């Protein structure tokens, strides 16, 4: 096969791989073709040049050492002619007249479009994020200002691409086809997915007010975003829409991540714990003491709404195979016990969970309340002053009387 002959002869340009390099006859030819196709969308040009590269590689294999500028010109014509022939056969538009937009005032719309793109990219997300209307309006003005160049420019936005500032910027891009460019292309696809997920989040929150719709939305938005990314490579005009939206997505990403990180602290469902808590410690039993300092027993406690106050007096984890741990309910009657109920602990002798009855307790009763004064004030708890609470001295509120007929559930 001639290809093998070519590679083994090892002339600098005869080796297929060397066609990738930017020097040698093939490299020069490739550069010439690229220049002649510069008005076409970059993605399309890259694919064409891939074809030309392998074409030149096949020619190099066929011609062997004879491949030089002259041989290429004899075979393919000049790069410009080759590009024109390919352009005509592929049905691309003919090259635009080069002189028109490149100098003087012809550049004004292109310059405005660049300024407009920068303004809308920076100001629209900033205005939305900070709620600054002036920034938002200036950003939208940037879009308006870009319109003349967008309307008159083709998919390649050649007038903008030929601005000296844009040229030097694009010149710093990694070499197309090189490892850096390929890596960036991979990153770009990843970014298309990320921005789609962010858009799905925002859409989900905006439409339904919840995150839950984000996943089904993402199934639609992710392919759409990738399509848009590919399309913007072919039609550079779309950049004037896509780049500001990308900046907006970055702002949303920052806001979302900023909101997600501190969120675990105030989440209510995860911090909910059964039982009765005071200042972070669980109240496992209640020891009622009368105003005269005498411990009370057989006491039922209710909250301001008449719901029974229940402690979870259990400190045994997982030992639920016997009923004796239950401080909450009387096992024989099934009704709630009055306070003090005692606590459930592991018995030191058996190692099983048992109810430990309330032990002796010494507490200091505030001296002001020790003085027993006659009249209803001392015996009436503050909450019972409300008319709905009924007559306090008659016993616990009827709504929550823990009798055997209506035991508190738990």
């Amino acid at each position, binding site marked *: 096969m001639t*290809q*093998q002959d*070519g*590679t083994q002869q090892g002339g600098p340009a005869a*080796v*297929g*791989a060397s*066609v*990738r390099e930017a020097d040698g006859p093939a490299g020069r030819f490739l550069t010439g073709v690229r220049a002649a196709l510069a008005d076409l969308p970059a993605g399309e040009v890259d*694919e*064409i040049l*891939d*074809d*030309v*590269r*392998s*074409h030149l*590689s*096949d*020619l*190099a*294999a066929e011609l062997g050492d004879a491949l030089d500028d002259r041989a290429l010109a004899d*075979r*393919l*014509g000049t790069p410009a*002619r*080759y*590009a024109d*022939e*390919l*352009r*005509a*056969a*592929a*049905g691309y538009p003919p090259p635009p007249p080069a002189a028109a937009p490149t100098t003087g005032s012809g550049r004004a719309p292109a310059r405005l479009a660049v300024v407009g793109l920068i303004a809308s990219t920076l100001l629209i997300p900033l205005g939305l994020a900070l709620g600054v209307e002036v920034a938002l309006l200036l950003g939208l003005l940037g879009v308006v200002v870009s319109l003349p160049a967008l309307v008159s420019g083709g998919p390649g936005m050649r007038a903008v691409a030929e601005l000296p500032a844009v040229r030097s910027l694009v010149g710093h891009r990694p070499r197309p086809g090189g490892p850096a460019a390929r890596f960036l292309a991979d990153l770009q696809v990843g970014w298309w997915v990320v921005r789609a997920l962010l858009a799905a989040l925002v859409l989900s929150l905006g439409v339904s007010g919840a995150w839950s719709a984000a996943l089904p939305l993402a199934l639609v938005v992710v392919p759409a975003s990738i399509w848009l990314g590919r399309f913007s490579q072919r039609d550079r005009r779309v950049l004037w829409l896509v780049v500001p939206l990308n900046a907006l997505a970055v702002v949303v990403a920052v806001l979302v991540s900023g909101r997600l990180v501190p969120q675990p602290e105030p989440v209510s469902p995860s911090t909910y714990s059964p039982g009765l808590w005071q200042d972070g410690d669980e109240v496992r039993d209640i020891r009622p003491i009368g105003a005269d300092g005498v411990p009370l027993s057989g006491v039922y406690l209710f909250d301001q709404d008449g719901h029974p106050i229940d402690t979870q007096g259990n400190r045994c984890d997982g030992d639920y195979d016997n009923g004796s741990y239950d401080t909450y309910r009387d096992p024989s009657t099934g009704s709630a016990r009055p306070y003090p109920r005692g606590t459930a602990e592991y018995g030191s002798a058996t190692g099983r969970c048992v109810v430990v009855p309330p032990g002796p307790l010494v507490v200091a009763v505030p001296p002001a309340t020790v003085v027993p004064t006659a009249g209803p004030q001392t015996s009436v708890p503050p909450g019972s002053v409300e008319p709905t609470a009924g007559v306090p001295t008659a016993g616990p509120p009827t709504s929550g009387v823990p009798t055997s007929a209506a035991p508190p559930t738990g």
Partner: protein
Amino acid sequence: MDTSQLLKGVLDLAVLAVLDRADGYGYEVVRGLRAAGLEEVGDASVYGTLRRLYNAGLLTSYVVPSGEGPHRKYYSLNEPGRVRLGEQIKAWQAFADTMKGLVGAQ
């Protein structure tokens, strides 16, 4: 008469016909056309035609790693491509018959 002018009108048909015989990469199609006697076909015209047919959805492509040189992009005729080929063959035969009738009479 300049055959390259004639060739322009039937290059699609020619390229589709070459690919209908076997899948091929760009330069293989060029060689196939030359081998069939179309000596004047321009390399760039073939590559451009392949791109247009591909962009029109008549061809699919796949990349085959190559020991030497860059990877090769093979083109293959898909169903719409075969349909188009059938149409163009009919149109060509009708046209050729017409021309034979016109030219053969003289």
